[in-house]
């Protein structure tokens, strides 16, 4: 009984089950929904969300109310920068990634310093940063889309590379491995959990918690910037609010993945499943021809329902 309950409330099992149920539901509503090429398509979209959620995971695990609401604006910024650096030239792909990742990393570090040095609550700091970046984006682009993805990048994101899978899925798998290695095999990873679990105790073992926390926001910014490069690779060009739709889902994916918003627990594999489940849900809702507001409403409700579920089980587990 107890065992059955633990398995059913295990975030990984729950996420995997919901993926299957949602696929079945999609297939029932619109035959062909769960076809192979469709699933690859869904995974490609999940990868972008999953990359954003990787940064979000780090910030949340690091604790002290960690959250990054600036990821949306930073995705948009990453896409815009990458598009302009590339200007449709294959030779500029690497510089585009470096510029997009570097600038968003730097902006994330600024948010991190606001949180650690000025002690501004993360929610406020990253929300404020989102506003600043969004404003700067409008000023920079004068509100019109600019920049083009290089053809190779578009092919890498959209066309099958090996085994019928696009390159972005392999990148995502590499990121997942890197996240596992970072969290389970490096001192930095152990420090992130320690800090999220009990910051004072972490300091008392000599860990430089301020520097670490600042770095986490930098990494979250960088992941958002990379996701921005993927977005422009997916769509070909970008518009200035392209990243907005990822903010709430990146947080929901983290929560579905079993990471407590209180910090100090969870891992990235759950988040991978969470990102996939959420993307399929979004697709099912689109197939049902639900308006944007309807999707938004259901997303919010899913997040709140998960908080209720996990909030309760955490107390049971102690």
């Amino acid at each position, binding site marked *: 009984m107890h065992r059955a309950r633990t398995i059913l409330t295990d975030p990984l099992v729950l996420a995997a089950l919901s993926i299957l149920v949602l696929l079945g539901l999609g297939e029932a509503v619109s035959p062909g929904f769960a076809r192979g090429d469709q699933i690859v398509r869904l995974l490609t979209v999940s990868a972008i969300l999953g990359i954003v959620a990787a940064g979000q995971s780090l910030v949340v695990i690091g604790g002290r109310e960690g959250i990054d609401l600036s990821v949306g604006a930073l995705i948009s910024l990453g896409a815009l920068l990458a598009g302009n650096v590339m200007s449709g030239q294959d030779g500029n792909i690497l510089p585009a990634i470096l510029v997009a990742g570097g600038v968003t990393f730097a902006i994330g570090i600024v948010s991190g310093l606001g949180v650690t040095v000025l002690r501004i609550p993360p929610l406020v700091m990253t929300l404020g940063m989102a506003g600043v970046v969004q404003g700067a984006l409008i000023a920079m682009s004068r509100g019109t889309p600019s920049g083009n993805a290089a053809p190779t990048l578009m092919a890498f994101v959209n066309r099958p590379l090996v085994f019928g899978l696009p390159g972005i899925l392999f990148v995502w798998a590499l990121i997942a491995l890197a996240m596992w290695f970072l969290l389970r095999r490096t001192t930095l990873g152990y420090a992130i959990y320690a800090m999220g679990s009990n910051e004072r105790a972490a*300091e008392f073992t000599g860990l430089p918690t301020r520097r670490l926390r600042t770095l986490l926001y930098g990494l979250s910014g960088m992941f958002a910037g990379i996701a921005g490069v993927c977005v422009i690779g997916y769509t070909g060009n970008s518009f200035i609010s392209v990243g907005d739709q990822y903010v709430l889902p990146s947080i929901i994916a983290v929560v579905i993945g079993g990471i407590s918003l209180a910090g100090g627990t969870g891992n990235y594999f759950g988040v991978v499943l969470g990102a996939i489940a959420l993307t399929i849900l979004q697709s099912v809702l689109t197939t049902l021809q639900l308006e944007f507001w309807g999707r938004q409403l259901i997303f919010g409700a899913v997040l709140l329902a998960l908080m209720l579920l996990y909030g309760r089980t955490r107390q049971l587990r102690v």
Partner: protein
Amino acid sequence: MTQTPSAEPSPARALHAQGVTKRFGAITALSSGRISVGKGEIHALLGANGCGKSTLCKIIAGTVSRDGGTLEIDGRPADLKSPREAEALGVALFYQELSLVPQLSVADNIFLGHEPRNAAGFVDRRRLIADTEVLIARFSAVAGSGFAAGTNVSRLSPDQRQIVEILKVLARNPSIIIFDEATAALDKRQVDLFFSILRTLKAEGVAIIFISHRMDEVFEIADRITVMRNGETVAEYGAGEVDRDTVVHDMVGKLADHQREARPPRPAGETPRLVVSSVSGGRLRDVSFSVAPGEILGLGGLQGQGQSAILQGLFGAEPFARGEVSVDGRPVRLRRPADAIRAGLAYVSGDRGRDAALHGRSIFENIAAATLVSERRRFVWPSALKPRFEKAAAGLNTKYAGMEAPIGSLSGGNQQKIFIARWLATDASILLLDDPTKGIDLGAKGDFFELARDLAAKGTSIVFYASEDAELLGLCDRILVFNSGAVTAELSGDTRDAFHLTRAAYGETA
């Protein structure tokens, strides 16, 4: 024992407590508490750490309920169920901790929760201000307050705040006031000011119970003295009819000179492992000492006299403002725990949940954190580290299900062993123990003392603060006794006994 019968004429007695008992779980805090205070009398309550004086005061103030015994206030039996009931009978407890709200005015603070109301039930601002001004005027003769009812508390100096704290207590017009370590944060001038306030209250007929950590103060201000030991009132005197050493003997008792194991003297001319020179800052005033390799140095005295401040300062958690520290002859800068850890220092806190436990993480992770820092590792290979950690934990007799079990699955004592193992795995050369046995069971305490002796025998230097004097006397080679942030005595050899420890704890030098 000098069991002086209470000779006070009973009509003048403001407070009489007799045979008061209190148990907390398996621990008897109070086996026979007695105190009798007359109106207009300043009564000092003395005793070593854990003798039950604070518990007795809390029972009188209604914050703790008694298990047995009698309590009379103004000659009538009182059965207090809450602080409110005690307050209604005129009992006030003055806390050492500052309890003021800086954003509010003096008047708002003084009447916080007791604001005068008008007919409509709203706060009557005019009366609030007027009542406060009366209070301030009453004490301006002695205190020269220099602030008004409307002044914001954030703009007051620390000693003015102390006056507001006292006015806050007086605003309830109490007939019995308990001052628990009210002078702990005050300098000499402020103590004089506080005493003149006490004398004014005494002249008004208020009964005062005064707990202090300074024998000088007790003999300066008190009319009568009650001494407690091991949860029991053992003596009562008029202040003029007793000398200080008699009082200390009463606090310590006869049994206290228990058998100590002989320790080999440290070799002469040995280079000290740790040298602390003239450190100050926070509560500390010019503290110097040194510790030899393999020595166990005890920090004694009443609670909160700077012992923890020294340890946290050495660990870089609350850095010293001034002074120097050197390890093995090399000066070290201790600005954060990482500095201390790399210099070979380790800190074990008595407050595990706050300072040590990585809640929800595995035992492995709880041990690993310090090793990763001290060895400047970048990568973690659990299979390489586990055998080391298991060895460190096994040395302490730790009972646990496995390195992957969550830390919360262990008892308090076993958790503390894990936090000690955390440092054993780093091969720290200096262990700073900050009341480490707080709240752990006797078996674990035994293991802990055995481990401390083993480590010392292998050359680890240990600086040990314990709130229980018996632990210090049983374990330490030397004991530094703290009072008000300074070292008042160093006990070793013949003076390393409970009598000298208690005497020095009350600020008596040599």
